[in-house]
């Protein structure tokens, strides 16, 4: 025992109580009036903290253990129900308004599909489901389609996606294109497999724009002042400017970002862009509000195709893949955390990787198919050379090699810095 003579069996709290001035009943009453209100309020305000999630959830790095997967997928028996959240016009439709792919899936597996086109944009959709997941609830969806370049990475980091058991994904292993296998935003496809991909390229109205655009530089041309459409988001707009400057998006530095932002800011201050668009850019292009615009590849196909063919019937709208290469992004099938029917979801994920099904989807959706083998089926069996030969649905190896990918942020600080540089351009 040290020179401290107190026996160590005395509880420190009791000791403190014995040695400190006792609080009289009167003090308490006096304090209560003044303190209670303030204390209550402060405690309340502090209690309003929004709790984080990454600590309580499994770490996103490292493969999930077989035990974890076994717990999620059991012995692989489907529950017979699949609740699928997808985007508008993103699945095949027959003349009765039903999806042949979904009908076939139900016929082959006995799993009923409730298909909802509830996703208009990644962020608002995620903003709706994140609070549910934070409180440990079930979103009501077993499968959803969200884009890389922020949304997927955020959900992985938050621990809000169910890990995939690749033993249930044989078709994916066999048929997926290299472009969607092992992507940088989800190494090893631990949480996601591609639904479709697309290029951010240039769309133009060939009646008004006589020289076919060849580069993102055409979007800066003062000739088209006030008639240029740009995307108002933190990937398509900045990435195009970086590519135009010849920078590699992934290794670019904040200095490069500032240079790219200067280019875009000058473009804006010269009055060249008409507006910064979301999906509405396509309508602006069809209406003639813009004559040259950043565009997503599949949309241009739809805009130009005749109405009898399911398109919008604007043959003057054409696609140009810029010489610098398009920007390739991928919409991914993911299973949200706490999904009720994960086995049904993963069965569907794999189902669409059969070349025949992929061909059926590609022939209707017109974005980049994740299954290269679907090309021959579209060409020979479905007999649709227009789609099969389109470089926007089945891009050549050269187009793919030249293409760039959305920025993958290493952490929130990097993303915040990127946003603080580019956001003032489109939120002016």
């Amino acid at each position, binding site marked *: 025992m040290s020179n401290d003579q107190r026996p160590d069996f005395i509880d420190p709290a009791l000791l403190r109580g014995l040695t400190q001035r006792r609080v009289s009943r009167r003090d308490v009453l006096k304090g209560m009036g003044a303190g209670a209100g303030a204390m209550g309020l402060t405690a309340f*305000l502090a209690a309003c903290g929004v709790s984080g999630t990454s600590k309580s959830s499994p770490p996103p790095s490292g493969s999930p253990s077989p035990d974890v997967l076994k717990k999620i997928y059991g012995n692989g028996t489907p529950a017979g129900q699949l609740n699928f959240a997808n985007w508008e016009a993103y699945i095949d439709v027959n003349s009765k308004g039903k999806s042949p792919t979904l009908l076939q899936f139900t016929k082959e597996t006995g799993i009923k599909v409730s298909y909802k086109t509830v996703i208009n944009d990644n962020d608002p959709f995620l903003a709706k489901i994140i609070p549910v997941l934070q409180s440990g609830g079930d979103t009501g969806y077993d499968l959803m389609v969200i884009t890389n370049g922020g949304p997927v990475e955020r959900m992985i980091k*938050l621990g809000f996606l169910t890990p995939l058991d690749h033993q249930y994904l044989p078709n994916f292993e066999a048929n997926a294109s290299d472009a969607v296998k092992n992507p940088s935003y989800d190494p090893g496809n631990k949480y996601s497999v591609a639904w479709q991909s697309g290029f951010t390229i240039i769309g133009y109205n060939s009646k008004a724009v006589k020289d076919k655009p060849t580069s993102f530089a055409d979007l800066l041309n003062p000739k088209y002042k006030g008639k240029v459409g740009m995307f108002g988001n933190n990937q398509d707009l900045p990435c195009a400017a970086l590519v135009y400057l010849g920078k590699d998006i992934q290794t670019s530095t904040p200095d490069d970002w500032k240079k790219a932002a200067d280019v875009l800011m000058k473009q804006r201050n010269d009055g060249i862009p008409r507006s910064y668009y979301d999906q509405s850019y396509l309508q602006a292009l069809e209406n003639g*509000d813009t004559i040259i615009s950043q565009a997503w590849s599949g949309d241009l196909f739809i805009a130009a195709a005749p109405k009898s063919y399911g398109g919008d019937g604007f043959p003057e709208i054409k696609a140009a893949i810029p010489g610098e290469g398009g920007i390739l992004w991928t919409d991914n099938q993911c299973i949200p955390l706490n999904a009720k029917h994960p086995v049904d979801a993963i069965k569907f994920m794999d189902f669409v990787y059969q070349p025949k099904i992929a061909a059926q989807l590609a022939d209707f959706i017109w974005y980049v198919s994740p299954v290269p083998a679907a090309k021959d089926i579209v060409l020979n069996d479905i007999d649709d050379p227009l789609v099969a030969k389109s470089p926007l649905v089945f891009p050549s190896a050269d187009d793919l090699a030249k293409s760039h990918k959305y920025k993958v942020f290493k952490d929130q600080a990097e993303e915040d810095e990127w946003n603080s540089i580019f956001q003032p351009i489109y939120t002016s």
Partner: protein
Amino acid sequence: MVLPGGAWLFVFFLVPILFLASVSLQTGNIFDGFRLTWHFRNYVDAVQLYHVQFLRSLRYASIATAVTIVVSYPLAYWIAFRGGRHKTTFLFLLLLPFFVSFVIRTLAWQFILADDGIVLGPLKRWHLLPQSFHVLATSTAVIAGIAYNFLPFMALPLYVSLERIDRSVVEAAQDLYANKLEVFRRVIFLLSIPGVFAGVLLTFVPAMGDYVNASILGGTKTTMIGNIIQLEYLTNFHYPIAAALSFILMAVLLLGIFVYARVLGTRSIEEYV
């Protein structure tokens, strides 16, 4: 009566407001969570980053409110004084377009006013307008959109206050040799001020926070504060900045209403709303 009302206010007004106040003073990010650190700097940051959009919203909302007064006063006056037995029909007609969703109506304007659309297209083809003329993607389009969308909020209170005017007062003024202009200026207009007051509140407050018109009808440099709050909340997950902006917006509006009420010389807002 006090208890249910009080409980309602507590649960649906006070608690959310306090929650918002707390969030606006927190720091952190969505991955690690947000903690209350009394970070008042959020307010400074919010103002520094977004004062341009704030002042712009103030300007747009003020002009749009003025436009709704100019448009809906004659409208409400006509229905109240000249509508006869078809008043209800006219009111119904006034409201009819507003049974369609706000967003759809705004999108319809986008379609109608397209550069080569059904209005501007023929005018350009007949060379009545220069080829480069456009309405969309300008501040005018956004302000007009707001004025259009909030028109009933101005027209209805105006109608109610005009309709309530005792006709014998108008007749008395006429009997005292007031001409039409004077009757309007010294009797009818003054008696309709409560309607103007309520209309301005009902129009200006939501117009200030509107983001639909700016995103559908606007172009570059027409972003309003509502768009920014949406972006900060839904896209950037910067809850504290979004909360601080909402609080500043609310404070500015409350202060504005207070000053406005004092200037108009009313003793209490409730009298008019």
